[in-house]
Each structure stands twice: as structure tokens, then as C-alpha cells.
């Protein structure tokens, strides 16, 4: 049961990480955009989301969004009842929050790519989209890896919060097991060891990915 929960935890983690990377790339491009309005909106997104606790946002999305939609529909004269799937709202919220964190990571990585490279690509006649895809993005990824690794570590621990909205992931299952067996310490401790295992595993993967990404770099 705990292992089943752990599998769901990893699914939630991976899908929200994918969303976070996607949002982060868009956010970083917006922050670096020439338009002042877009920059301002992206700035609002990162500061506001990073300033609010995850738990409040999760509760806000899970309970707040359906009622908000219902209220709007009621104003328009429709009568309907919506409730969000805990998996989807959990992934959406966690992805949304850590999208803000990865925006900053990608922004830093983008700025770390030497300008000369982009100029050289332009000189070779590449249009801007092609330059981004072929030159900037691959190099950015290399600079972004350590930061993304950190985001992932925090994210996987934040998925424990989704247990609050009753998604049967690792934490929730440990809670149920603890209640039925009256051995809370044992189950929560085992759960914590599983989280520790996930962390150690991702650490090793991250090291491997960084080594692979940096295989073209000469070091003194």
C-alpha cells in the first residue's frame, strides 16, 4: 500500500515537474521579452506565487476554483456543479507553483549563454526560432540542470501536501495505515524513508545527467 502510494507520488511529481518546466520556459521567455507589459505580468507571476505558501494555493485551487466557476456561472444564469479531480488539481497547483521557481532558473540559464553564440548563429543565417531551438535551448539546459534538480527535490517533497486534498499518494496512504493499525510512528517513519530513497535516487540521476550534459566542457 505504501509502495502503491509511492508510485502515485512519483507520477504526481513527474507530471507536475513536466508542467513546471513548460511553464518555466514560457515564463522565462516572457521575462526576457521586449514588451514591458509581458515582463510585468511574468514578474507578478513569479513574485506572487513564490510569496504564498503551497498549502494555501492547493486549498485555493481545489476548493476555490470550482466555487469561483460556479459563482460566475450563477451570475450568467447557469446552474451547475463542478468538483475537481484531486490528481489534476494537485498536479496543476504544484506545477504552477514550481513553474515560478523554474522561471527564475531558466532566466538565469538563458543569461548564462554567451551572446557571441547567438550572434554567430545569426551570422550563419539562422532565424530566431531556429537559433533558439538549436543554439540557446541546448546550452541553456546545461546551465539549468543544477537549478532544476533543486526544484525537483523541493517539488517531490511538496507533493506530500496533496494528501490534504485526499489524493491517495504516499503520505495519505501512510496516514490511513497509521490510523487503522494505531502504529503512527512506524508508518510515518517508513514513509519518510521512502521519500529519502526517492531523494537519494534523484540525486544520483541528477549527478549522472550533469556529467552527461557537461561532457563537452573542459575543466582545469
Amino acid at each position, binding site marked *: 500500500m505504501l509502495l502503491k502510494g509511492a508510485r502515485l507520488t512519483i507520477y504526481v511529481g513527474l507530471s507536475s515537474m513536466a508542467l513546471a518546466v513548460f511553464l518555466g520556459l514560457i515564463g522565462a521567455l516572457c521575462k526576457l521579452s521586449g514588451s514591458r507589459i509581458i515582463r510585468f505580468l511574468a514578474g507578478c507571476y513569479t513574485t506572487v506565487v513564490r510569496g504564498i*505558501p*503551497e498549502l494555501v494555493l492547493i*486549498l*485555493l485551487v481545489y476548493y476555490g476554483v470550482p466555487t469561483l466557476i460556479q459563482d460566475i456561472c450563477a451570475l450568467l444564469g447557469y446552474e451547475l456543479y463542478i468538483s475537481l479531480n484531486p490528481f489534476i488539481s494537485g498536479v496543476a497547483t504544484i506545477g504552477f507553483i514550481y513553474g515560478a521557481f523554474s522561471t527564475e532558473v531558466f532566466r538565469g540559464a538563458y543569461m548564462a549563454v554567451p551572446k557571441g553564440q547567438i550572434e554567430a548563429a545569426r551570422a550563419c543565417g539562422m532565424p530566431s526560432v531556429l537559433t533558439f531551438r538549436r543554439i540557446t535551448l541546448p546550452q541553456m539546459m546545461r546551465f539549468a540542470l543544477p537549478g532544476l534538480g533543486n526544484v525537483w527535490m523541493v517539488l517531490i517533497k*511538496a507533493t506530500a501536501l496533496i494528501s490534504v486534498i485526499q489524493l491517495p499518494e504516499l503520505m495519505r496512504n501512510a496516514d490511513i495505515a497509521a490510523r487503522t493499525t494505531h*502504529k*503512527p510512528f512506524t508508518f510515518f517513519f517508513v514513509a519518510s524513508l521512502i521519500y529519502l530513497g526517492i531523494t537519494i535516487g534523484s540525486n544520483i540521476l541528477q549527478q549522472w545527467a550533469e556529467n552527461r550534459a557537461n561532457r563537452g566542457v573542459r575543466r582545469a
Partner: protein
Amino acid sequence: MAAELILDSMPRLLQGTWTTIQLTGLSVVIGFCLAIPLSVMRVSTLRSVWMPVYAFIFYFRGTPLLVQIFLIYYGSGQFQGFLSDIGLWSLFQSAWFCAVLSLTLNTAAYSAEIFRGGIQGVPFGEVEAARACGMSGALLYRRIILPKALRIAWPAYTNEVIFLLQASSLVSIITVMDITGVARVIAARSFAFYEIFITAAVFYLVLVYGVLFVFRRIEHRISAHLKVSP
């Protein structure tokens, strides 16, 4: 209607804010006092000294805070006999105590790692110079290494305090009435979910900016010779 409800719940939310401030403040202060000796032990060359500290830091940084809170609050029930024998059971029964304990241990582990980075960032020349002046051991740490390390680590420590402030919202799950706890109760009674949670989010934003302001001021003060503007 929404504005009325928010105005009505203001006193309770402010009370919750005070609880959040107390919880975070207490944990930051105790956690800081724990983190300094821990980080000094962490850089020790003696295996028997740094290994246990490393294990402590590793565990608390590698597991979610929610698990730690549950482990202390619910998990302590499994040791009821032992805890009441040594007279600590009444403490572990209080959600407030368990909240402070878990937040403190958590922040101590994270900040010990931050201060370790600071200690290792102290230029070796300064340590050498202090040694040449005849300082050793505790005096060296007190006068040279720790002040310098604190200056290096301060921006990262500011982040940690902000994270702790946000993480303190988790204690609402074990029935402590902080901002989130109050918001959940009001929301459950009035069904005004988004109004109340957005209000709570604004409260947190204000607190975060307050902490940032205070910590920038301290940074400015302790790095006055570097002329960092606040």
C-alpha cells in the same frame, strides 16, 4: 457579501497571523541557536563529530516537513508510556509544542547547511592571519570565522526564513490555528473558499515582505563596510 465576510473574519485572521508570527519567530530563533553549533560540528574533521550531524541534516532535508510534523505529533503517541514516564507526554499532546519542535528541527537542519557553506566560504588567509595573531579554537570561531560566515550566508538564510514562514502553514493540518488554520475553518463554515483563501494569501505576502524588509536591514547593518544598500 464577500467584503462583509472578510471584514467580519478580520479579527480572527489577525489572531491567526499573530500565531503564525509567534510560531515562525520562535522556530527561527531556536533553530538559529541550534544551527550555529551544528554547522561548526559539520565542518569538523573528526568523523564521530560530523557524521551524526550529517545524518541529522540529511534526514531533515530529505523528507517532507509534513512527514516530520506527523511523525512528531501522531508518532509520539506510540511512545506514550515512555514519554509519560519521563514526564514529557503532556508536551507532546499539545499541537502547538509539536509544531514548534518540528519547525525548529527542520529549519535547524537547513540553516546548518547554509552556515556550513558560509564557514567554508571564509577566505583561508583570514584564518591564517588570526592564527598568526595567536587566536585558536573558540576565539578564532567567535571573532573571525562566524561573523564572516554569517555575512556570507545571510542572503541564503533570508530565503530559508521565508521558506519557514510559508512552511509554517502546514501546522494548520495538526489543528494549530495559524492564518491557514483560521482560513480553513472560516471557509468550511461560509463556503466562501476563494475569497477567504485569497485573503489569507495576501496576509502571507505582507508577512513575507515584512521579513524581507527586516532581513535586508540586518544585512545592510552587518555588511555596512561593504555598502550594501538595503
